[in-house]
């Protein structure tokens, strides 16, 4: 499944996360993870992001996660919405 359009979910407010998905021409998924707590939680954020993208079957997209200290449930909710929006027309 390819990402069909550029979308965002979430926000840059404190305790939230902004997820941006952009379609790529090539068959690959690029992850860019920024976080204000990258040292403590960077690896976990990446794992959750990759896991959800794989589950959604995304195959050609750049997924940019800008975390502002969101709880994992928030991150999952934002990712789910963004992944859903990127393929729904």
């Amino acid at each position, binding site marked *: 499944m390819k990402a069909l*359009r*550029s*979308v*965002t979910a*979430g*926000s*840059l*407010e*404190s305790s939230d996360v*902004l997820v*941006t998905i*952009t379609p790529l021409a090539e068959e690959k998924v*690029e992850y*860019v993870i*920024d976080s204000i707590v990258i040292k403590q939680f960077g690896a976990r954020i990446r794992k959750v992001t990759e896991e959800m993208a794989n589950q959604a079957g995304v195959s050609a997209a*750049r997924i*940019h996660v*800008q975390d*502002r200290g969101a709880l994992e449930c928030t991150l999952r909710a934002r990712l789910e919405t963004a992944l859903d929006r990127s393929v729904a027309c």
Partner: protein
Amino acid sequence: MGETEFGLEERVLRTKAELAERAALLASRGLTVPTGEGLVLGLYQGERLVATGALVRNVLQGIAVDAGFEGEGAGATIVSSLIKTAIQRGIAQIFLFTTSDEAPRFEGLGFSRIVAVPGGAALLEWGAQGIAQYCASLRAAAEGRHGRTGVVVVNCNPFTAGHRALIEYAAAHSPWLYVFVVEEDLSLFPFEVRFKLIRDGTADLPNVTVIRGGPYIISSATFPTYFIRPDREEAAQKAVRMHAALDLVTFRGWIAPALRVARRFVGTEPYCDTTSVYNETMKMVLPEEDPAAMDKWGLESGVAPIEVIEIPRFEIDDEAVSASKVRELIREGNLPEVEKLVPRTTWEWLRSTEAAPVLDRIRHSDSRH
């Protein structure tokens, strides 16, 4: 839109009264109302405007939060909404224009700094693909070529004998010459046509590479006022000088080192105010070697200077050849005169069927570009 966040209501500002409130809020934070039309958002608490921000093309600007509402996340709310709008509009590269004093606030929200002139303006960008990656791709393309290269930046709307003379001179005085073509598609001749005419018209010069100007050379982000009708008023001239400086500091600090540029060539500008201000600023920013003066432009002391070589405009019958003259002749329907002012490659294209809609648009436009 219209979502409530912490009791704040988001609105699109349209009316005169709303825009006056916005101007007052900007002024209270020492900011001026940005030039150019765009989407203006406001956050209200009841009937009081507490935060504002605008999206003009691909640039976020005019962002201000009421002093009493700082630290409440109102700025982050506005910026998030503007980013969402930009992405919905299919804008791939988002910039943010602010003062250098305010820049750290936006860096905290995940923006990266391109340039910041101390005490002056700053340009930041958002997203995963930034100027560092762009310069890495330039560096890779320049791999194996000689150093001390030359650069010409042109719009070529369309490519004339004057452009040809400038490029020929620059190529003869550089081991390698890069010709950047302004990519912003706001000219009467579309970018793809301008690019093709320059490539065809310089194909015989072995040491010239014609490249897309990209988002960092005279673009709507680095130099928005370039694409607006010139205005002789002092405030407008000041904006032009400020944008010109941002564009040129970006060139010297980022692009020139990637291509190992030693010289930039320009033609003298007899007609256009904006371009002549740009050229004057260029002569100040690019060759400066005094560390204190460089610091004033926001340039690190190690950045190599660039010699600016200004060449008198190419003339035919005592008249400078310019693209605006060519467009004027097209508008008047005087094609035989055009033939004298353009290289054969441009002339052939103008006579092709592909050119018809472009010529038609020129005849019915009074645009400067």
